[in-house]
């Protein structure tokens, strides 16, 4: 592959917020002592009066965001996925989800690509947690272009949205003139006939790489980018499954409860086919450089390819 530009989606989140801040006065950003890491610091610099640091108190931050939303503000509450979806789960469910308040949750540092901080900070459960909340939109963008589009779409959407971003710089794969982001609409990135790889987040670029390797061996893989885990684009996935007869899911998240589960739930209703779920296999992560971890946990292009080869 030729050298591609790499940007962490948390950077995209920060940039998109700063841009949107100019357009919308009702947009406010909350953080819990991680503005530097979640990249909301960019927004803070431009709009200090609309940036609210809640201190290390994520549960309170979610409640404050809820209160702000009742008065017409559009809060983006930011923290690491571990604390936004994990620690503050019940606040998100009861104070934001149940009253269906217009709060956006910007969760950075998701998955094992957090790297050196290790298992305590590597959230592989957030998609599972968030998608069980009625009315919650769950978005996991694959690159900078998609992440910035997702933040904009989240602002335009009326109701709670969970946005998942990463710490690791990932290849920009959607930089093309016809790219279009719509909540709930999957994107077919590559047509194929032998199997379908449904991927999300940073695994989308890995899935494309795996498809390329498979093509070299005469295996034709369709690749679908599912940036919205909920609502899931069931029609697109089912139509592809009916065509290829085999589905692989790929995500930087536990194989329990995330994209893999969501796809299986959808397919068992309309197009039951064998499914291989690639993800973090019901285990905690560990410390190490992000790229090395993705290799070890077989979530990079090679790892996805190897697992598919073993399964076929």
């Amino acid at each position, binding site marked *: 592959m030729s050298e591609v530009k790499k940007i962490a989606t948390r950077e995209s989140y920060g940039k998109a917020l700063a841009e949107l801040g100019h357009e919308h006065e009702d947009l406010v950003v909350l953080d819990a002592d991680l503005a530097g890491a979640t990249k909301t610091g960019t927004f803070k610099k431009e709009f200090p009066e609309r940036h609210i640091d809640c201190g290390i108190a994520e*549960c*309170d931050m979610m409640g404050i965001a809820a*209160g*702000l939303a009742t008065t017409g503000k559009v809060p983006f509450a930011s923290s690491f996925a571990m604390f936004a979806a994990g620690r503050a789960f019940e606040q998100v469910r009861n104070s934001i989800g149940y*009253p269906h308040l217009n709060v956006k949750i910007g969760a950075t540092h998701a998955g094992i690509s957090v790297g050196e901080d290790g298992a305590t900070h590597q959230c592989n459960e957030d998609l599972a947690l968030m998608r069980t909340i009625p009315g919650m939109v769950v978005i996991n963008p694959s690159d900078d272009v998609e992440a910035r589009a997702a933040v904009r779409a989240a602002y335009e959407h009326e109701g709670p949205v969970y946005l998942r971003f990463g710490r690791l710089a990932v290849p920009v794969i959607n930089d093309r003139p016809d790219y279009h982001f719509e909540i709930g609409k999957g994107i077919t990135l590559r047509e194929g006939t032998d199997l379908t790889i449904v991927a999300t987040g940073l695994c989308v670029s890995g899935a494309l790489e795996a498809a390329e390797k498979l093509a070299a061996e005469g295996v034709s893989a369709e690749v679908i980018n599912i940036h919205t885990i909920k609502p899931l684009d069931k029609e697109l996935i089912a139509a592809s499954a009916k065509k290829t007869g085999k589905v692989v899911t790929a995500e930087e998240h536990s194989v329990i409860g995330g994209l893999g589960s969501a796809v299986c739930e959808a397919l068992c209703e309309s197009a039951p086919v064998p499914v291989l779920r690639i993800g973090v296999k019901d285990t905690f992560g560990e410390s190490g450089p992000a790229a090395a971890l993705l290799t070890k946990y077989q979530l990079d292009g090679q790892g996805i390819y190897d697992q598919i080869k073993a399964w076929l």
Partner: protein
Amino acid sequence: MNTLELQKMANEVRKGIITGVHSAKAGHPGGSLSAADLFTYLYFEEMNIDPEKPDDPDRDRFVLSKGHTAPGYYSVLAHRGYFPVEDLPTLRHIGSHLQGHPCMQHTPGVDMSSGSLGQGISAAVGMALSAKMSDKDYRVYTLLGDGEIQEGQVWEAAMFAGHRKLDNLVVIVDNNGLQIDGNIADVCSPYPIDKKFEAFNFHVINVADGNDMDQLRAAFKEAREVKGMPTAIIMKTVKGKGVSFMENKAEWHGAAPNDEQYAVAMADLEKVGEALCQK
């Protein structure tokens, strides 16, 4: 309203509590009754609200952080005109807008859904912060249980409110002294409550009898004068206040009266009402 009118209204609010909980065969009468005078004072005297305009962006807000005392909240909202008093017996019934805990999407006048303890105060802080950010002069009130303040989130919210000097926020603690498992001092003592809020940079007002309208009036008058810091009103109350057999009994935290007990409770309140009419 003058004190006597407020007392009479609080007694009607209490009847609504007993009616709702009896009809639901479930619910939380004890903490609803201890806070009935507070509910009444807020909605009939203190707050700038209009039942005809429940979504007015400039209205004062109330968050019932101790959401299980919804029967008291619903009763005061009904008596204030947000919805018919006749709705109160539908409490906790399937299809009713009166859910077991307050739901802002269902019930007119409810400013925030609540019920999971410790969460309402954060939402109230968010509302108060929003007013400051938008140069609006509405005030925000939130009622917490004295058991509820065992939740850590309460202190996260208090720290933030003190730090941000939210002088448009009034946190009220219903210090009836009892929680489900017994006396709050025995279960896991939150005392001293006043010193804790002081340490979190609140102006603290201790109310010796939170079931006394004149004392409530004095406290809220003082709270309005406070500038540069939020106010905490710690009010001593009697759990189950007004119903003879429920007063100071933890077992009436979350239990409904049977038909016989209902008759006794309503008779107790009728007596109170008659005595007030003699004044």
